[in-house]
């Protein structure tokens, strides 16, 4: 692997969801409530956040891998910046401590 490829691969963030048991879900009409046991915090989630957590099983996943899973499981609203939106939402979930973000 060239030095440049190595650097690029280490710059790609990867995300890891916690155990499913850490989360308690409650669906409301227009949003989803999520209780995160480790922090004791409750969050209100709108699409696509719940779907992102749903498709993230164990293991480290890149945003691209998560996007692929999302599109396989859901009829994703088409748009030019869908992948960018997914990256932005993953960063948001990581900032809240709902998923872990690790250097690739």
């Amino acid at each position, binding site marked *: 692997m060239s030095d440049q490829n190595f650097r690029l691969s280490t710059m790609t963030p990867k995300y890891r969801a916690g155990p499913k048991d850490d989360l308690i879900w409650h669906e409301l009409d227009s949003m989803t409530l999520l209780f995160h046991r*480790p*922090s*004791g*915090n*409750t*969050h*209100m*989630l*709108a*699409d*696509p*956040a719940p*779907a992102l957590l749903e498709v993230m099983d164990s293991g480290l996943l890149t945003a691209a891998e998560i996007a692929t899973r*999302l599109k396989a*499981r*859901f*009829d*994703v*609203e088409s*748009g030019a*910046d*869908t992948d*960018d*939106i*997914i990256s*932005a*939402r993953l960063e*948001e*979930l990581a900032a*809240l401590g*709902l998923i872990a973000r690790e250097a690739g």
Partner: protein
Amino acid sequence: MTDQIPSEPSANAASNQGIVTRRRALMMGAITASAVVSIKPALAQTAGSVLNCEIPVPGNNAAGGYIAADGSVVSADTPGAFPPAGRNFSGEEVRQAMNGRTLPGTSYDQSEAYVNYIRRLQAGQSGFTCYASLQMPR
């Protein structure tokens, strides 16, 4: 009818086999639109102000009561009981007291009694919210 419905390609494909499966449509929102709003528990406030909240010893409902060694509120003539603290303690001071230090301006036994009083607080009593917020995992 040859027009396809653009939003349901999966349904059209599956319907050719006599079954109809639909993946749930997923709205993506805008790139700058947050999809998560965190509900801040009222009793946790912010990281800074939690430690500045106050706990009176004893609370308003037991004003003037003395504090026994086990933290119960007793009459002033009870042997070994300590007088009211005369000041409120901050969440930070109580947190430190629970980690081995004494509450400011108190002797060791007095601090123990006050901390035991605080540990007995129930919802609805003054200082309970502040005390409970010290227990919140971070």
